[in-house]
């Protein structure tokens, strides 16, 4: 099958005198390099200028909180199972009474670590997560001088309650629409559930 019409059949033939001299070819080459000399460089001066990246760029992870600020992660371990690079480890713990505003589910991740040197930023953890807890963001993992520093714990992964990370750009219209439906258990926060329980008792 012919894909393009740029096909050029290679023929082995004697070189002509001009080709044997090499000098015309060298001159041509030098004209080409000189053209590039005056071209604008393709360099992006990184720390000052940042390349435009997609909203769905797969950069540094974030562990999301829900609207009330409770951590969404329930330490089910599906992300760790999905991870092809085995970069994720976690330790689960049971939620105690009075911690309902901190953790959304009865079980939570006491320790949650991602080794950023192992991570290949494939986004399978994000896909595996049933609780919308882990997302990849458009932030770039900064460099460091020690390997240990690249094992990110919850201190670096969980989003700051005062500086939420907007992920709406990563989600399709259908998902955003679905999230508004509070009758679905997936979208209910602990407070929502309490409210529903009370209403049910009244009935």
């Amino acid at each position, binding site marked *: 099958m012919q894909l393009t019409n740029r096909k050029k059949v290679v023929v082995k033939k004697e070189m002509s005198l001009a080709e044997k001299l090499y000098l015309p070819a060298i001159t041509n080459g030098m004209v080409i390099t*000189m053209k590039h000399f005056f071209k604008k460089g393709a360099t992006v001066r990184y720390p000052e200028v940042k390349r435009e990246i997609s909203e769905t760029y797969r950069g540094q992870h974030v562990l999301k909180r829900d609207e009330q600020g409770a951590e969404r992660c329930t330490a089910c371990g599906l992300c760790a199972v999905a991870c092809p690079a085995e970069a994720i480890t976690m330790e689960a713990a049971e939620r105690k009474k009075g911690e309902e505003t901190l953790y959304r589910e009865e079980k939570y991740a006491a320790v949650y670590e991602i080794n950023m040197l192992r991570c290949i930023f494939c986004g399978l953890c994000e896909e595996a997560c049933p609780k919308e807890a882990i997302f990849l963001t458009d932030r770039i993992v900064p460099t460091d001088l020690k390997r240990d520093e690249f094992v990110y714990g919850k201190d670096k992964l969980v989003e700051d309650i005062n500086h939420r990370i907007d992920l709406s750009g990563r989600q399709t219209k259908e998902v955003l629409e679905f999230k508004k439906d509070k009758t679905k258990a997936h979208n209910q926060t602990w407070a929502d559930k309490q409210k529903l329980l009370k209403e049910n008792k009244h009935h």
Partner: protein
Amino acid sequence: MLTFIIYKSILVLIVFLISLGVAAYATYGERKVAAFMQDRIGPDRAGPFGIFQPLADGLKMFMKEEIIPTVSNKFLFILGPSLAMLTALMAGVVVPWGGKLAIGDHFYPLQITDINIGILYVFGVVSFGVYGIMIGGWASNNKYSLLGALRASSQMISYEIAMGLAIVALVMKTGTLSLGEMVAQQGTGGWWNIVYQPLGFLIFLICAFAETNRAPFDLPECETELVGGYHTEYSSMKLGFYLFAEYINIFISSAVISTLYFGGFNLPFQSHIPLDGNWLVIAQTAFFFGKVIFFIFFFMWVRWTIPRFRYDQLMNLGWKILIPLAIFNILATGVLMYALGKV
């Protein structure tokens, strides 16, 4: 006599410093030219446009750990880069950098010494440069270094022949070996030598590339095949000396090419330019440096255009093409001179 010594010492010092300065900024220029030709920007962090990059590089070289392999011959190991640097700096002595400056009623020529065998001196010193590489490669006691040094010496010896033969034709035309006199001839009546010796110039230029170990003839150090060639075992400022000597050699080669074939410090259409006295001398020197800088740029331009030769291609080019061409050039020059009644 005392003023003579002082004036010569000052001139030597100036040429020395300029050689070092130009070589230092040639490294910066090389990186910039390479970057521009590859659609990049090049060093731009150290100072505006990165102009302090050579200082940073030099400082880095000094700060690096100095390693002398235990199996090496220590004396020769240190002698290698020293010789490379020494021979590179020596050739600048006979290059005429400008005319005669008049201060008071004394004339001070801007050429350290105009020995009557100037071109032979340059040739001798440049071919001496192979010892720096040979000794360094041998003393390292490393296969890669030795192979690099072997390649370097055979390459330099092969191309010196063609270079010498190219100069023979030029000497036949000018009738002198003194660089000062050659420049004077090109200034007063007559075209620059490139017009009379185009083939000779081409041969000389190609050989100059080979003599300075520049791409496409950078086989002695070819990183992809020989790890680093003759300077594999070198580190710190000793490596710096080798790299630096290469740039000084480029500078001197450019100066010699400009002197021999491009009229030296003469301006084009000099007799029509309304300048005289010291102003003319200054303009000439500036123009000479313009030519030199153009050739340094040319060296880099070629480096970032052409890939490296294979070793057998290099030897073929040297022995089977350049040397016969140079001999033909001598014959043609002789015949033409005889036919035009110049002999």
